[in-house]
Each structure stands twice: as C-alpha cells, then as structure tokens.
C-alpha cells in the first residue's frame, strides 16, 4: 500500500446497511448500547421482524444504491421468535451469498450472523469485524447503479 492509498483507506468510512431481526440481533444492539460497548459508527440499522422477512433482494438493492457493505443478522437457529423464519432465511442467505460471490462480489462486503438478544458483546464484536472487512474491501463499485451510466 502506498502512503496515498493508506491515507485514502484511513479516510474511507464505508456505508454499511444492517438488517437486524427485531427479537434477537436488534435486541443485541440495544444491549450493546446498555453495556456501553463502543463500536464503529458505520452501520445503519434497518429493523425487520425476522430474518424470515429478509428478502435477498434487499441485499441487492442496498448494493445497487451504493452500500459498501451489507450485514444481515438474526436469531440463532432454533431460537427464532417465529419458530422457523430464520431456518428458511438461512437457505435463502446461503444461496444468495454464494451466488453474489460467484458473480464477483468481493469477499468482505456481505455478512451474516446470528446474534441473540443476550449477546451484546458479540454484536459489538461482529460490528467491528464487519466494518473492518468492508473497510478492507474499499469503496464498492460492483452491483452499484451509477446514474451517469444510465443513458
């Protein structure tokens, strides 16, 4: 890395969209707050009732709109507030994750986790991991809709 690149990478504050299920991971984020755990500020949380609600299309939409990273987090398998929403989600995520990476999404852009509402610490840790990984991947140019290319 040249010093210039280093400077750029230091200044680069990625935009990360985080889809959190209401019952576990959103609760974990709340708990991380209650516990005053400090983590990078790059995530923007969208609350969904369950990872079962998470249409894989949202991931594409976030990238299309220019997100540098996307993170989806829900309840641990077996702990879904809606019994099985995350089991169905897991299959969709598995396929979409593989698919997007096969299509050329850089490693480090798309993240998934299971974080229970008691795991504030894990939440903070995963935010750090996700942010670091997205930072390392740099600004996103893939699957991004650049308006100037429209016509």
């Amino acid at each position, binding site marked *: 890395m040249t010093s210039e690149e280093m400077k750029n990478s230091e200044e680069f504050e990625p935009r990360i969209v985080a889809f959190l299920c209401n019952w576990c991971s959103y609760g974990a984020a709340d708990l991380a707050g209650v516990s005053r755990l400090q983590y990078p500020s790059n995530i923007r949380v969208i609350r969904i009732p369950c990872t079962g609600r998470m249409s894989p299309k949202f991931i594409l939409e976030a990238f299309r709109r220019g997100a540098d990273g996307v993170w989806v987090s829900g309840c641990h398998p077996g702990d879904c507030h809606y019994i099985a929403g995350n*089991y169905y989600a897991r299959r969709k995520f598995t396929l979409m994750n593989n698919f997007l990476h*096969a*299509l*050329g*999404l850089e490693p480090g852009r798309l993240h998934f986790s299971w974080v229970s509402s008691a795991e504030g610490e894990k939440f903070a840790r995963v935010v750090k991991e996700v942010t670091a990984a997205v930072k390392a991947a740099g600004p996103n140019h893939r699957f991004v*809709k*650049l308006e100037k290319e429209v016509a």
Partner: protein
Amino acid sequence: METRTAKIREAAKKLLSEGKVDVVIGYAEGSVPMKTAPFFARTPEEADRLVWNSHCRINLANFLPRRQDRVAVVAKGCDTRNIVTHILEHQVVRENVYLIGVPCLGMVDPDLVAAKEGRLIQEAVEADGKITLKGKGFETVIARDEVLRQNCRVCVHRNPSVYDELVAEPVKEQEGVDRYADINELLAKSDTERYAYFNGLLTNCIRCYACRDACPLCYCHVCFVDEAMPQWVGKSQNKADVMTYHTLRAFHCAGRCTDCGACESACPMGIKVRQFTRLLEKDVKEIYGYEAGLSLEALPPLSVYRPNDPAEFIK
C-alpha cells in the same frame, strides 16, 4: 428421430380421436433451418404436423400453467421435470395433463452450428446422428453430438421423470459427466475476473426478457421487473440494472431450475444466461442434495429446511 415423430403422431391422434384431450402440444417443423415451432394440434389431422428432431429446444411446459382445457404435451426429460415443478407449485393438475414422454438425446445449438460453419445455412437435414448443412454453394455434414447445446451435453436426466406414455425406450443416461466443470473453473478465478466475466456476458443484453418468457418457471402474473412500488430494478440499459435483473431472475429459479436451456435458446443475442442459473442449480444440488422435478414428493429447497442445514458463512 423418425420413429419418435411417428410415435408422437400416433399417440396424439389416438388421444385426439378418442376425445381424451382437447389439444396436443408438440413441435412442428419451423420455417427456417434448425428451428421448430410449438404446435397445438387439435384434430387428428393436425397431429400429422407434429415432429421430433434435434431442434425441439423450446420447453413446452411453458404453455401449461393455468390452462383450463385437457391437454397432452410432448415432453423430454427436462420438460417433464418442469412439469413436476408445476404440479408441486399448483400450476398444473397432474390428472389434467397427459404426458407424452420422449427420451431425449439432446438438442442442437444452432448458434454453435452457425459458428462452426461460418456461412449462412439455408437448409439443415438430419439423419442418423448427422446433420447435412446446405447453403449457397456448399454442403457439409456435421455430427449431431458435436453441436449439442451445452446443457444437453452435461444432461443426466434425459428420460422423462413422469409420463403417461413413452414414445421410445428410455435412453441410457450419460455417465461420468462433470456437470459443472466450467463453472468450477470460473469459480476458481478471482472475484474481479468473475465480475468482469458476468458483466461481459450481459454486454449485449437488450432486456427483451425472452429468457424469462421462455422459462416455464416464470409464470407470475406480475414479474418483479414490472413492479413499480417499489421498483426493484430500473428499466434502462444501465449495467447495474441489467445485472440486477439477471441476478434476481436466476434467484427466482433457485431450486426449481432444471437447466433445460430454454432461456439460453430463446436469447436472441446469444447470451449465456444459464451461467447465472447454473450457479444456483449447482449449489442447490451440492448443498441441499436437490434436483428439481425428479420427485412429486420432495418440495423445492427454499420451501423447506433442515435444522442442521450447513451455513458456515454465518458468524
């Protein structure tokens, strides 16, 4: 081929003359070389126009969803698998469809023939596994097996998975086929190369949606590309939108796609659109052990789950 044609006609005539069905959907000779047209025979006489050759690429399962009439359909292995999916997805009632199963030996890729020949082919005659190509001032013979569609070359389900009758003895399924050799090769490349590859594939896409419309799985009333609130994907030729369209189209086929190749055969711009669906088809098979349309019992993989499904990528 000729005997298959004869048997299909015979079956169709019988069904029509006995009034068992209102229509037999099959293939008729096309008006240009190496092409057939879907044909809807409604009388025993019309049944004489049905043919079977190496150009029955269109997946006739496409014409079945939501039909009200009693129908018989000429179906090769992949077509029957799609019909199974239709049955599982309540688009087709098994009892209302008579399946004239055709053990298939693969279909020819006319683009491949054209690329091999390089001259305008005005006539193509098929006999004994060979195709005689005629054009202005030339006549060449090409082996059928050399110009099969890629999906047919790696097909391991050539025989119909469900049928009411077969017009020929089941063919021997291909063995030792590495279905995903090229995909694995592609996956071994860097993400940058893959991204460039898939964008490159789509350079010529005109978003006519023929890939979608030729696909028997795409039977929605409203496709996501036509949705306005919210708009999932822009309507212009923007690269990201074109990519988004192909990504989502393929994803909607995940666990349902039989790699029948109808999309790719329909593409007027010669885009290898199957490269998208195959990635998912491969994963579904390797991760969930599911191949679409082989069983009327097993639900598609996104409709079910196992508590211990693998997902190492999830933190």
